[in-house]
C-alpha cells in the first residue's frame, strides 16, 4: 500500500520545482482580484437609492419626463417620510432615465422597481414600444415590472397619491393589481408579457388602467392596444368579461339586478372554435361557467335553477358579444382569437363571432 504520510524529518525538503509551483500559485491568487471585476461591483445597501417605481410622461414637444419614488426608510420615519419623489427629463427616454441619477446623492437602484406607469398620452401617441424596448435593453431594470396606464392628466400625478399601507405608492400599486386580479378587476401585464405580445401575432396587448378615488389610487379598467398604441379603454365591468374571454377568470361575481341576485363564479372556461360558414371564416366562443348563488333577493326553489341559468347565460352572452364588438371596432384582438384561427385568413374587425354560454348553476340552500 502506498503511504501518503509525510515522514516527519523529511517534510521540509525543497526543490526548484516546488518553489516554482508555489510562486505560480501565489501569482494566480494575487491576479484574481486584479483580473476579475468582482471587487468593482460591490455595492453596500445603504449606498443605494432603492427605486420603488416610476412614471413616464412625454409632452407635446416630445420631451420625456420621469417621475420616480425612492425609498427613504428610517426607523422612526412617518409614512410620508419613507419616500422621496425625484423627477428628471430628457430628449429621449434613455436620456431622462440617466438624468435621474443626478437627482439623488446615492446610486439609483432600479432592480426592485415594481411598477412602471405610462401616461395615456404617451400610450396613445408614442406607444408602449419605446418604453418596453428600453427596459429590455437595460440590465438595471427588471422585466417583471407591472405596466400600468394612468387615466390621470399625467402619469407623474400617481407619485403624489397617498399610500394606503407601505408608504410607497408604487409598491401599493403592485399589491393593488395583485389583489384585484383575484376578483377579475384587472388583467395584469408585466413588461416581458407586453414584449411577447408585441412580438407575436394573434393577440393584442391590454394594460390595467389606474385612476384616483379621493386621494388614493384605484383601478379604473383596462387600456386596449392595437399594436403598441392605445386605441381605447374598458370599464371595470367590461374588464371582468375580458378576463372571462381570456380564460383568466378566478373569483369573480355576476349580478342579475332584475332578480336582485349575486352569483359567485367558481370555475370558468373559455375556448374558441374556428368554423367556416359560407366559405368565410367565423369563430364560435364557448364559455362554461360553474356558479353558485351567493346572495338571493327572494325565495328560491329548485325549479328556479333552469330559469336563472338561462338568464345568467343570456347576461354573459350579451356582455361578451358587446365587448367583442367594441374590440373589433378598435381592431384590437385582445382575446387571442388569432391564435385559434390556425392558418385561416380573416379580418378581425369583420369576423363573425358567436358566443355560446353554458352555466352550471348550484343554488345551494333552497326552500322547498
Amino acid at each position, binding site marked *: *500500500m*502506498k*503511504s*501518503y*504520510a*509525510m*515522514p*516527519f*524529518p523529511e*517534510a521540509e525538503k525543497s526543490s526548484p520545482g516546488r518553489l516554482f509551483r508555489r510562486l505560480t500559485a501565489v501569482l494566480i491568487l494575487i491576479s*484574481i*482580484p486584479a483580473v*476579475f471585476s*468582482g*471587487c468593482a*461591483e*460591490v*455595492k*453596500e*445597501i*445603504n449606498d*443605494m437609492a*432603492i427605486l420603488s417605481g416610476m412614471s413616464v410622461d412625454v409632452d407635446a414637444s416630445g420631451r420625456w419626463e420621469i417621475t420616480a419614488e425612492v*425609498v427613504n*426608510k*428610517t*426607523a422612526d420615519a412617518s409614512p410620508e417620510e419613507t419616500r422621496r419623489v425625484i423627477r428628471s427629463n430628457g430628449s429621449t427616454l434613455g436620456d431622462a432615465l440617466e438624468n435621474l441619477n443626478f437627482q439623488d446623492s446615492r446610486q439609483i*437602484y432600479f*432592480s*426592485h422597481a*415594481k411598477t412602471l406607469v405610462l401616461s395615456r398620452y404617451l400610450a396613445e401617441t408614442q406607444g408602449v414600444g419605446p418604453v418596453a424596448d428600453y427596459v429590455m435593453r437595460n440590465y438595471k431594470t*427588471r422585466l417583471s415590472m407591472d405596466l400600468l396606464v394612468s387615466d390621470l392628466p399625467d402619469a407623474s400625478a400617481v407619485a403624489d397619491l397617498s399610500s394606503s399601507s407601505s408608504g410607497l405608492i408604487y*409598491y401599493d400599486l403592485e399589491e393593488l393589481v395583485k389583489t384585484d386580479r383575484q376578483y377579475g378587476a384587472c388583467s395584469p401585464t408585466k413588461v416581458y408579457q407586453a414584449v411577447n405580445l408585441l412580438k407575436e401575432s394573434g393577440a393584442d396587448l391590454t394594460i390595467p388602467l389606474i385612476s384616483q378615488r379621493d386621494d388614493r389610487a384605484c383601478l379604473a379598467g383596462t387600456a386596449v392596444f392595437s399594436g403598441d398604441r392605445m386605441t381605447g379603454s374598458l370599464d371595470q365591468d367590461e374588464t371582468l368579461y375580458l378576463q372571462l374571454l381570456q380564460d383568466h377568470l378566478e373569483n369573480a361575481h355576476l349580478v342579475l339586478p332584475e332578480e336582485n341576485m349575486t352569483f359567485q363564479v367558481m370555475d370558468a372556461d373559455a375556448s374558441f372554435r374556428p368554423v367556416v360558414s359560407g366559405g368565410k371564416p367565423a369563430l364560435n366562443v364557448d364559455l362554461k361557467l360553474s356558479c353558485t348563488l351567493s346572495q338571493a333577493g327572494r325565495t328560491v326553489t329548485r325549479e328556479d335553477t333552469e330559469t336563472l341559468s338561462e338568464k345568467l347565460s343570456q347576461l354573459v352572452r350579451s356582455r361578451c358579444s358587446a365587448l367583442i364588438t367594441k374590440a373589433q371596432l378598435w381592431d384590437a384582438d385582445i382575446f387571442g382569437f388569432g391564435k385559434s384561427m390556425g392558418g385561416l385568413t380573416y379580418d378581425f374587425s369583420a369576423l363573425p363571432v358567436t358566443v355560446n354560454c353554458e352555466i352550471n348553476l348550484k343554488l345551494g340552500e333552497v326552500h322547498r
Partner: protein
Amino acid sequence: MEPQKIKRRRLTAGLDENIALLKEIFGQDTTIKIRVFENQKNPRVRCCIVFVDGMINNVLINEHIIEPIMLNKFLHKTDHLLTDLREKVLFTNDIFPLREIDAMMSELLSGNTLLLADGFSEVLVLSTRGWSIRSISEPAAEKVLQGPREGFTEALIINLSLLRRKICSPDLQYEFMTVGRQSGTKIALAYIKGIANERIVKEMKRRLKRVDIDSILDTNYIEEIIKDAPNSPFKTTGSTERPDIVAAKLFEGRVAVLVDGTPVVLTAPFFFIEYFQSNDDYYSNFYVGTFGRWLRILGFCMTLSLPAVYLALVTFHQDLLPTRFLLNLSEARLGLPFPTLFEMILLILVFELIREGGSKVPANFGQTLSIVGGLVLGQAAVEAKLVSIPVVIIIAFTGVTGLMIPQLKSPIIFMRLAWLILASVLGFPGFMLGVIALLIHLSSLKTFGIPYTSSLSKTFAEECQDTFIRSPWRRMLVRPSYISPYNHTRQVPQEKSQGNVKEKAEAKER
C-alpha cells in the same frame, strides 16, 4: 547523566557500586528512593529496592517485597538467589529480570520497582504501580443522553481493560510500542484479528515506528505526524475518549492507538462522514438518529455558508433578495460606518474570542461571560451603530451551528473565512469557487490509502446504510467493504417477527 552514557554503563555484581551508579544517574532527585535491607537470618543476603516515590503501592512494597525477603528463614546467598526470590519468596504478580540500564530506567520511571541483590549484575523488575489516577467518568465533550457513560483515563492499563470489557474476544490484539526518545511513552495498537484490514494494521505499525520525537504527551502529537495530509485542516484519523466508540470502530475493521498519559484514543482510517456520526445515533431510535445526523450536516453547511451567502447577497446580488427584506436591511444599515465585510469579520473575531475565553474560564464565571458577551456586547455594538442587527443574527447563528461538531472546529474556522473573502471579491461565483475547492480537496484526500469520501460515493445500498441515514440495526448486515474486505458479514438477516407465515402455521397447529 547523558542518555548515551547511561546506555554504555553496565551493572556490576557489587551492590554498593550499583547503588552508586544509580545515584550518579539520578543526581539530586529525591523522589528516587533507594532502600537497602538484608535477610534477618542470613545477613549475606543483601538487597536493595529502587522506586519512585508517589508512583508505587507502598503496601505492596512493604508487605510483599521487603517483609518476605527480610523474614524468610530459608534464604541463602547462592547463584540462584534471584530465581528463588522470583519463584518462591516475592508476592507480586509480575516479575522479570533485566540487564540493560536504559530498560531498567524505563521500568523504574513507569512505576515499577527494581530489586538489586548483592552479587548479581541483573535486576528483578517488580510490578508495583500504584499512583493515583482519575476515576472513570463520562468525557465532557462527548456526552450522550442514553448509553454508556464510561470514558478513558490517563492510564494505559485501565484503558486497555475498558476496551477488553467491551470486546470479550481473544481476537482482540494489543501490540505495544514505545515512542518518544525522552518521554518513553508506551502506546498500544489495538485491532480485531480477522476483521481488521491487515494492510491498515501494517501501515499503522510502519508509521508509528517512524515517529521520532523527543516526547509524546498526547495522541495529537502522533496524529499530526502520521496523518496522510499534514497541511489539510481535515483529520484523517479519528479521536475519541469513549471506549464504546473505539470498540464500535474496531468491529468495523479499524485500528486504534492508545497512548499512555492521555485519555484520547486514535482510530484509523477516518472518513469524512464520521464527523457527522455520533454514538447517540446508535443508542436511540433510527428515526431520531437519522434526524440528528441531518441536523449536523445542515449545521455544518450553514456554519460555513451563511456568512458568505449573506455577504454575496447583500453586496453583489441585491436583486435576489425579497423587496421587503431589502428595505429592512437598508433601514438596519443606515448610518453604519463600516462595510458589511468588515462587520462580519469583526463579529466572527469577537465570537471566537468569547468562545475561546469561555472554554478556559472557570465555571463560576461562565454565565457572567455569556451574559457580557452575548447581551451587552452585541446589544451595545448595535446601539452604537458599529454593526447591524442582521449581521449579529447571522454570526450568532453561524457560531451556534459551528459548535454542533467540535471536531470540525479548525476546518470550519479556516473555510468560513476563506469563503467569506471569496464572496466579498466575487459574490456568488466566488462562494461557488470555494465550495468547488473544498469538494476537490475532500475528494483528493486519502486516509491510509482509502479515499476520504469513500462512504459518500458508494452506490450499493448495503454500503450506504450508515452514511446520511442511520439504518435500523436489522438492516446493517455487512461491514463497509472498503475498510474490512475480509470479514464482511456483520449479522445474519433476521426474519420478521410479525406476519411470519411459518410461525403462524405452527401457532395454529398448536
